[in-house]
């Protein structure tokens, strides 16, 4: 079963069993502009919900990517490390950042679903 959730900081989480894949939304990549650099955590590191999981940089801005859920980092997307443009090209898919093994799936309940996020973004204009 796959399910996607969003934060008000424009991160998304896709859940597959106890594995969460985290990235930034299409809206976020558009706001940032051309991504030039991505910094990813070490595999094996344990992070808590709200911690900095990664850093994404464009020419004019640098943003921290916070993890919405706690868990152990089991994989990072080294493709976007080598080719940061991948974040702009497919933010919601191949441009993912990290995969976590969740320690507390109940954290997902606080996040927005697709419709709620859509409304949230529209409200920003």
């Amino acid at each position, binding site marked *: 079963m796959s399910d996607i959730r969003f934060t008000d900081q424009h991160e998304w989480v896709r859940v597959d069993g106890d594995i969460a894949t985290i990235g930034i939304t299409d809206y976020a990549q558009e706001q940032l502009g051309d991504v030039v*650099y991505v910094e990813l955590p070490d595999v094996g590191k344990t992070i808590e919900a709200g911690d900095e999981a990664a850093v994404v*940089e464009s020419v004019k801005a640098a943003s921290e990517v916070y993890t919405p859920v706690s868990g152990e980092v089991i994989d990072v997307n080294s493709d976007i490390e080598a080719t940061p443009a991948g974040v702009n090209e497919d933010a919601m898919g191949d441009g993912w950042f990290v995969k976590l093994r969740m320690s507390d799936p109940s954290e997902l309940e606080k996040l927005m679903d697709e419709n709620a996020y859509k409304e949230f973004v529209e409200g920003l204009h």
Partner: protein
Amino acid sequence: MRYLPLTETDRREMLGVIGAKSVDELFRDVPEHARLEGLVDLPRRQGEIEVERALAKMAAKNVSASSVPFFVGAGAYRHHVPAAVDHLIQRSEFLTSYTPYQPEITQGTLQYLFEFQTQVAMITGMDVANASMYDGSTGCGEAVLMAHRVTKRKKAVLSGTLHPQYAEVVKNLSDFAGYDLEIMPPALPGKVEDIAAHIADDTSCVVVQTPGFFGELVDLRPIAEAAHAKGALLIAVVPEFVSLGAVTPPGEMGADIVVGEGQSIGNGLNFGGPYVGLFATRQKFIRQMPGRLCGETVDADGKRGFVLTLSTREQHIRREKATSNICTNSGLCCLAFTIHMSLLGEEGYKRLARINHAAAVDLAERLAKVPGVEILNQAFFNEFTMRVSKPAADVVDALADRGVLGGVPASRLLPGAGLDDLLIVASTEINTDDDRAAYAAALEEVL
């Protein structure tokens, strides 16, 4: 006032457009009791003639290096600066331009920064260099902070070869930023400092200066090996940059970060500033570097051009998460460095270094013959330390009375360290045989 173009007529007309009766109205947001009604208690305006006279009078009370046999070093060195350097850096387009944030109309600055970065990287034997720091000492502090970021550790070990004021700058920064520091006792020439024994698993970096504060050249290779074995970085500090024309560069001896003072090339003594901090490192650490970086790119027409890059490390974007709070470089001093280095070229730079070394060797040989003098150094470049039979501070004073500026007493920077009889002496291409003979003669009189 000659620098203020507005006339009374202009001011009246402009106030009319603004719709204000007087300029006082424009200051109405200032709380009333803080508005100064009269003038501050300082002299009134003066013409060029008066200002020049007053400042020239102060200047005349100083003994300038060019007026006497001069042998003072210890972190700032008197070298010849070709006339073209000072002429070029005074061109309006260099002197009165801002930081090159608008690359379309500041390619001049950007290109020389790119050339500067390349020269510094080549000379230090490192991969990359930044567009400079304030000076060597502050660059040294920044290097330690960078090592902490890279290694995610928080303890630095400072060698006793490090200039005591550099060590103080690092200590100040470390104390306030909450980092740990071990400062080794002054490392006198003739004894090998066992710094490797002080590198532990929690050591972030070791900071070693070569030529050291007392002039002795340091073999960085075993130190680099020891540091790397524990996962620590080696920061090499080079305050006399002319030395690298003759001496193996730190990059070839395993240094991870090289910090230099670039004053020696193209820049005058200026009583301590402005100088130019050189900062070079390995490619893999570039995103952890402090300071401005200039990079190559192309413009909309596909022509080669240069821009400031990787600025997301910097404070104006990253704010409290920046790698440093530094907001400036030493622009014009880098330019002076780059022009002088361009004039020197490979051959000129190496020859300049040889001349310096020859000058210092000659001086050491002459002074060694003076009774009451012992030269401590084994391997040195253009500076060495001698033990004298009287307090070095008194010797320097007495030499000054005889018209020779003979060096720096170690006790001036390291009081209470039992080094009162040590005198640090430099000789560069500026000194003639006669200067060195005059020094030897005066010293003989004094001792």
